[in-house]
């Protein structure tokens, strides 16, 4: 098999879907007035708000994540492991479930306002609008960035701390000389990803934005398609998002600093700055704040789920039909995303290890991530317009949701599988070449035993993301075709909060079970470390 074939097929499919969808929409729009739409003040208001909220969200997430990661790196306290696990959860917890939790904590009748009322103070209406969007984005992205930064800090060779203790460096010097350079290697990439996620964020803005003033490009595309069926405007908005967000992310990635792999004896040395009363106070405050921001909404979901309406809601046939449809979508999209991601990584691995072109390999992996800047609604609608002439309209919903969800999960597969696949090749590629172990035999004997855990993790993440996704289903959902996230959104929209709480709890539970079953079942139990 030539080295370019796997990624060639995968990218051809992705390009065909994206290009075909845009083209179909553009052609279908009666007199596509790109110029008129671009001259529209509404569009530029939306662009301004999108950039504003994404910039603020990224700044807040990163600024909070730095002290949180630092505190986690230099303190050991009870519950630290649990907190890190909950941080990891924020990546896969369904957006709409977390939003329910945020409303339960920050809403007008939420926990914080209940607290204020107990103290005899007035209730505050701060949730809906820009504030709500920022809280939502900080909830999802601060833990994500903090974990990346913590990894970078923990990768600092322990010997560095030994040298630092010897010279008696102060906390401030440690940050400037050791921690900041370590963080700089990962910060641009992390910030770029967060910016992209916030720029194209849909569910948070739709539910917490609270009105037409707080509309982003992604939501505007959805509204143009769902309520106005204005294809021309949808295409214009999508193109603006594609160009603008793509350009900003590429610019951010240019700031990236290549990391240097350091030699280490692998011993542990105490960090010299663990003491100090003021440092302790700052770290404690930071951790408490992180717990309030991230953990409280999760607790709210768990607590609210047990309410009097549970038996009634759980007895509905529509709910269980949605469970079934959600699972079919999640598993199919997960497998498709895994196949596409693995194909791209096979080629990028050849580029890296056999052809000595790591730059080209990196660009290929980046190309797979850029799918995130394409609004999924544009893909889905474009394909719908394209295919409705040849297929039954009602049969199209499910496959389209699966395809679009798979594309949206692709960057995560590349991220989770990329590192292990490159490492595997670094260890075994020459050995396999020299022994003539190729193709199916290599997959069966060498790759699968070494990669089944990361493969299972990547599939688990992709499937769980898809299970909890409130995206194109909002466009195609109907009486007969619904997923749990859609039912939850509809219940929240109708202010049936008791019902919403039950669905949120059920959806969380389902995500957790699906994740653990795939990760444990496919990945196998953790073996004894075989070195």
């Amino acid at each position: 098999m030539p080295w370019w074939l796997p990624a060639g097929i995968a990218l051809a499919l992705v390009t065909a879907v994206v290009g075909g969808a845009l083209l179909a929409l553009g052609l279908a729009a009666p007199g596509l007035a790109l110029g008129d739409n671009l001259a529209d003040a509404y569009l530029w208001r939306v662009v301004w708000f999108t950039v504003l909220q994404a910039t603020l969200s990224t700044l807040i997430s990163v600024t909070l994540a730095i002290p949180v990661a630092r505190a986690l790196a230099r303190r050991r306290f009870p519950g630290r492991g649990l907190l890190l696990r909950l941080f990891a959860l924020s990546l896969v917890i369904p957006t709409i479930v977390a939003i329910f939790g945020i409303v339960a904590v920050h809403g007008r009748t939420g926990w914080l306002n209940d607290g204020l009322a107990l103290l005899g103070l007035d209730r505050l209406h701060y949730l809906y609008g820009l504030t709500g969007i920022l809280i939502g984005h900080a909830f999802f992205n601060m833990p994500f960035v903090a974990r990346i930064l913590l990894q970078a800090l923990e990768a600092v060779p322990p010997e560095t701390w030994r040298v630092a203790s010897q010279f008696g460096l102060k906390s401030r010097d440690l940050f400037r000389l050791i921690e900041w350079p370590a963080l700089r290697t990962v910060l641009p990439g992390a910030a770029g990803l967060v910016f992209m996620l916030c720029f194209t964020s849909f569910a948070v803005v739709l539910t917490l934005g609270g009105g037409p003033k707080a509309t982003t490009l992604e939501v505007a595309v959805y509204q143009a398609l769902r309520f106005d069926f204005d294809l021309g405007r949808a295409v214009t908005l999508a193109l603006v998002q594609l160009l603008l967000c793509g350009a900003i992310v590429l610019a951010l990635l240019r700031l990236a600093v290549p990391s240097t792999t350091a030699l280490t004896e692998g011993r542990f040395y105490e960090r010299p700055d663990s003491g100090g009363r003021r440092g302790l106070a700052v770290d404690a405050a930071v951790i408490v704040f992180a717990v309030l921001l991230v953990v409280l909404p999760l607790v709210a979901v768990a607590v609210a789920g047990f309410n009097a309406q549970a038996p009634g809601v759980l007895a509905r046939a529509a709910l269980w039909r949605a469970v079934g449809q959600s699972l079919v979508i999640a598993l199919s999209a997960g497998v498709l995303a895994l196949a596409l991601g693995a194909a791209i990584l096979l080629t990028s691995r050849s580029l890296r290890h056999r052809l000595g072109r790591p730059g080209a390999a990196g660009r290929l992996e980046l190309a797979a991530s850029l799918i995130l800047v394409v609004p999924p609604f544009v893909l889905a609608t474009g394909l719908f317009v394209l295919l409705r002439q040849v297929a039954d309209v009602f049969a199209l919903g499910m496959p389209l949701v699966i395809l679009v969800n798979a594309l949206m999960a692709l960057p995560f597969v590349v991220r989770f599988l990329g590192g292990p696949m490159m490492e595997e090749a670094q260890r075994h590629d020459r050995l396999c070449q020299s022994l003539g172990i190729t193709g199916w035999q290599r997959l069966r004997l060498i790759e699968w035993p070494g990669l089944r855990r990361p493969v299972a993790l990547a599939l688990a993440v992709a499937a769980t993301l898809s299970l909890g996704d409130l995206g194109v289903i909002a466009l195609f959902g109907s009486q007969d075709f619904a997923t749990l996230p859609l039912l939850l959104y509809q219940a929240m929209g109708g202010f049936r909060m008791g019902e919403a709480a039950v669905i949120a709890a059920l959806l969380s539970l389902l995500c957790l079970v699906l994740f653990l079953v795939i990760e444990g079942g496919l990945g196998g139990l953790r073996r004894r470390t075989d070195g």
Partner: protein
Amino acid sequence: MADAPMLAVERLSFRYEDMQMVFDLTLARGHCLALLGPSGAGKSTLLSLIAGFERPLGGRVLIGGADVTGWTPADRPVTSLFQEHNLFAHLNAEENVGLGLDPGLRLDARQRRVVAEELARVGLAGLEKRRPAQLSGGQRQRVALARSLVREKPLLLLDEPFSALDPGLRLEMLDLVRQLQAERGLTVVMVSHNPQDALRIAGQTAFIHDGRVLAAGPTRQLLAAREPAALRAFLGPEPG
């Protein structure tokens, strides 16, 4: 082609970052050649070019008289021993050796007997079912050596496979290679940065410096002559 040298490297060129390399070498059948030189000189690159892991910009590699320049690593009549990662961690010693006979690991009774015999030959009888993590560093390299033997390739390439071992163990392994070479009539090319290794097992030595073969000849003469200057600098001041 009994007269053809076992290995001939002709104007073989390669480029790594800013370094231009051009190599010329010949080695007769049944001999052992040490590639000696400082780190970064291109010793391992030359070995990779001979094994087929890297593609040269120009020139030829002939093995047993056949031009193998365009061949894949598995098709070349060579077998390689690396410094590390010679074994698959999830397979036991027997399976790791068996891969040398069949890359799909479907072995018949005769092949399994061969595997057991070669493991015994390198001193690992009874350890067939151990995984690499349950073996010492020296034992792991013995497994890899057993696999090289079952492949029955005439040219054995060693890329500093013993340099991480303790001095006594290293000499033991070198002696084992020398015995096996004599028994099986192997031709051996060994990369090393230690003149003692060359003296121990290699009749021939080529001194590699800055992407070129600066000097080549019988090991004793070459090391005694201490010429050119780069070789003198590499060897360091004479003792006493």
